[in-house]
């Protein structure tokens, strides 16, 4: 029996091929995951992985890991990563470059941005079927909340709640402001 099951079990899967991407946007980047559904051996080791490539001036929408810790290793380029803990404190806000590692604990919210440069990474997750929950976008947590909950929670008008809930239509990747645009925003805010 082992010969037909364990011994013949497929143990590898290429996730760097753009043709295999789960999320693909030519101008923004791509994200590819492998879990126990796509590679059954991961059920035994209780691990999974995600490969990501961000083009310049793109961002992965804010999200958190529901059932896994994540270890992100930068394989190329440079990007900015912000991580927020359970007290709402920013526990990481740094540029990450090739060869560096970031640990993102379960539940901690994080966002990945690339400004000008491409950013490539591989994430290992400590669950064979790691699940994420996004904080912005069409399938996000905000989108699933009633407007009343949003407007009362943040003390904002229903119209503002509507914008927060519906303005972002993407699910995973979106455009990030470039450096010039970011500086302009900062100037406007300071003014």
């Amino acid at each position, binding site marked *: 029996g082992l010969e037909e099951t364990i011994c013949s079990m497929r143990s590898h899967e290429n996730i760097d091929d753009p043709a295999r991407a789960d999320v693909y946007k030519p101008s923004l980047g791509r994200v590819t995951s492998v879990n126990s559904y796509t590679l059954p051996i991961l059920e035994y080791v209780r691990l999974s992985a995600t490969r990501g490539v961000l083009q310049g001036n793109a961002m992965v929408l804010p999200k958190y890991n529901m059932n896994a810790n994540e270890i992100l290793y930068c394989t190329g380029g440079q990007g900015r990563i912000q991580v927020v803990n359970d007290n*709402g*404190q920013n*526990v990481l806000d740094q540029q990450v470059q090739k060869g560096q590692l970031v640990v993102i604990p*379960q539940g901690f919210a994080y966002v990945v941005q690339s400004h000008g440069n491409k950013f490539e990474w591989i994430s290992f997750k400590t669950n064979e079927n790691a699940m994420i929950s996004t*904080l912005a976008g069409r399938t*996000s947590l905000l989108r699933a909340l009633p407007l*009343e909950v949003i407007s009362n929670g943040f003390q904002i008008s229903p119209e503002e709640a509507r914008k927060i809930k519906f*303005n972002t239509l993407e699910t995973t990747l979106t455009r990030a402001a470039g450096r010039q645009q970011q500086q302009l925003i900062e100037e406007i*805010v300071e003014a």
Partner: protein
Amino acid sequence: RQSLGVPPQLQNECNLDNLDVLQATETIKSEAGQIEYWDHNHPQLRCVGVSVARYVIEQGGLYLPTFFTSPKISYVVQGTGISGRVVPGCAETFMDSQPMQGQQQGQPWQGRQGQQGQPWEGQGQQGQQGRQGQPWEGQGQQGQQGRQGQQGQPWEGQGQQGQQGFRDMHQKVEHVRRGDVFANTPGSAHWIYNSGEQPLVIIALLDIANYQNQLDRNPRVFHLAGNNQQGGFGGSQQQQEQKNLWSGFDAQVIAQALKIDVQLAQQLQNQQDSRGNIVRVKGPFQVVRPPLRQPYESEEWRHPRSPQGN
């Protein structure tokens, strides 16, 4: 539990020769209620790997959306309310079906609906995507801007009529009442509103030794809205002000992610909000929800008079 990888320093922690009755040790007050915690560092609770809290939500109070890294099970001790649970990636299946005002007057989004069907209608959101693809998918910002430029967002640029015409949609909400048990998986957010006329009291247990909690044996609550200046839930969060998740991000990043202006993004961070995690809802709580099942609620349902009653 020891077989599930309890750290060695905890394995000899269970001294079960004498057991005590435990009372809540800490109370965190909010604008419209309070949360009482049992000290999860107490040897008995530490031994069994759980944390317990009691939520008291006053009439018209809303417990703001939160999630945990551990599974949670709750029991409604008293009162009635409305509970919402957010399952990531699931469609918004609750929507107002009242006729939209202004449909006859040529709303900008009518053309899009006419071609593709309403994106929020029916069961086939996935199927619809599969057949036609969302016009904004796979095109990045440019594609989206193009669409907006041509047709506008369904909720924008329509003036008063458009605002009246667009109704909310969201994921499932349920009525809860005394005697109900409900469970939450790690990472799925939930909120509760007290729709009754008496305080809504809920006792909840967090299984922090559960294998699905991959962090330490401290209960960790993540708030999506509101701030808690008194801290709470013991452990790492004790004595520390708890802010919501948006507080830790750069406001500009939030603005980019949600495509809103920076000022509104700063409001999401609730920096000046001292209401706590249970806030008072001003005015009626108009959330799309099914009516209460009256026959189910009645005594006749529980004790049918006629033997023919099924």
